[in-house]
């Protein structure tokens, strides 16, 4: 049985003020195995976020269903941790209390909360910043905190929606290595949305390519690069071959998306 089953999920957003409804997602099915790291790659506006938000339970599908370990998803919950593209740390809480947030909602004793939070903060390299407020952190540090916050809840799955999209290139690559390292250590099931081809290949065990809007799954490519992967894998011929293929797939869709906008 797969960890996550997305079954004929589709989404149409109702139009507002006499505008036509937006068809964001064609009926989409996807099976995610336990311990898989899936990246979802697609041009802007193709419905990647919509699909991820449906899995998170933040959006209800117009049709179809999502099953997590065989149980239908009916709303957001702590079993699916999420990191958003925008910075969503609670600005009034310290870094440590942000990471404690979910544990606190669950009613864990304070001492245990702190122990868990400090462990995950160390894992994302934020020891020494526990008492900072989010406004005092760089974008990369904020997203690392958000990652620690999601991981601290020990979710069954991790959902990431372009979490590194707003970061500069170098920081972004370091964050990819950090996330991949964490995944290689405990193999939590991950669904990662991006429109960056290198990012998609580097971390994934499977890359799912989506077509231009309305989104549907265009192809599903297993990435057979060995683990543990270092950044050096990006210069290997195997990586280049994946990149060439995906560039072609994405290019076609991007051209479609751009001409559609005209």
């Amino acid at each position, binding site marked *: 049985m797969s960890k996550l089953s997305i079954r004929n999920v589709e989404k149409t957003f109702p139009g507002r003020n006499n505008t036509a409804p937006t068809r964001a997602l064609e009926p989409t099915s996807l099976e995610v195995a336990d311990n898989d790291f899936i990246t979802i790659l697609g041009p802007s506006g193709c419905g990647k976020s919509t699909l991820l938000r449906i899995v*998170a*339970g*933040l959006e209800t599908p117009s049709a179809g269903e999502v099953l997590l370990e065989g149980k239908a998803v009916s*709303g*957001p*919950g*702590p079993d*699916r*941790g*999420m990191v*958003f593209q*925008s910075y*969503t740390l*609670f*600005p*009034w*809480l310290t870094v440590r209390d942000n990471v404690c*947030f*979910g544990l*606190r*909602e*669950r009613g864990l004793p304070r001492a245990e909360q702190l122990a868990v939070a400090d462990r995950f903060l160390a894992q994302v390299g934020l020891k020494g910043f526990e008492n900072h*407020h*989010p*406004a005092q952190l760089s974008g990369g540090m904020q997203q690392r905190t*958000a990652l620690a*916050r*999601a991981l601290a*809840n020990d979710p069954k799955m991790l*959902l990431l929606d372009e979490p590194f999209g707003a970061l500069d290139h170098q920081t972004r690559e370091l964050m990819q290595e950090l996330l991949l390292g964490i995944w290689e250590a405990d193999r939590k099931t991950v669904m990662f949305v991006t429109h960056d081809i290198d990012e998609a290949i580097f971390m994934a065990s499977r890359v799912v390519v989506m077509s231009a809007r309305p989104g549907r799954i265009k192809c599903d490519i297993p990435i057979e690069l060995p683990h543990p992967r270092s950044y050096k894998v990006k210069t290997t011929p195997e990586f280049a071959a994946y990149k060439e293929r995906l560039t072609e797939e994405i290019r076609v869709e991007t051209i479609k998306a751009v001409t559609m906008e005209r």
Partner: protein
Amino acid sequence: MSPLFTPLKPVAPALRTVLGISCFVLFFLGWGIATYGGFVKPLFLASPGDTLAAGIALFREFGFAEDIAVTVWRVFAGFVMAAALAVPLGILMGAFKPVEGFFEAFVSFARYLPASAFIPLLILWAGVGELQKILVIFIGSVFQLVIMVTVIVSGIRTDLVEAAYTLGAKRDGVVLRVLLPAAAPQIFEALRLVLGWAWTYVIVAELVGASRGIGHMIIDAQRFLDTGQMIFGIFVIGVIGLITDLLFRALNARLFPWAKGR
């Protein structure tokens, strides 16, 4: 163009203080020239010196300190009553749209009813005692505050709320531990603004049927055409306003340091 006048560019705190004080200096200078220069008759406008003398006499001979205490107490009582009702109601209206739907139209209607127009009715209902004055302030503040708090809570970033849901927060957790702390600094700011309006109502309330208070003193002074006392009374209100404003700001910076520079 001078770099000082770059749009939105802050100035150094010292310069800011100097600028603020200069405005007062200019004001007194203009006032002094108008009165000591003989441009305005003393009957219409007392000079700064006469006003100060009138003020000293007020404190020495007419127990003005008690008037001030009475007025401050009225403002405080009416304002606290209004805040105690408006802040929770505004939070509920902002968070729960059916509550907003129920109250919004009525509050918007009530907001436009001038508090001073209620004075005759309130005298009929509550006599000319303390309760009547406090109620004028209450009526004048409560509806404004409800609307402001509702707007503030409605405007809290939805991605923070969504993040809380994916961390396992339930409805009450979202209201108490996300909406409330996120809105707190702005609610505080709204209280500061509304308190300023409360001062205008108290004076109106004291112009009618009062035996004590700053407003009563001003009306009394009018009978003797004592412009010095009148101006001094108005001045005292301004000074008290300035002090409460500074206190509110200091408290805001103290309570919500994380919101600084947003």
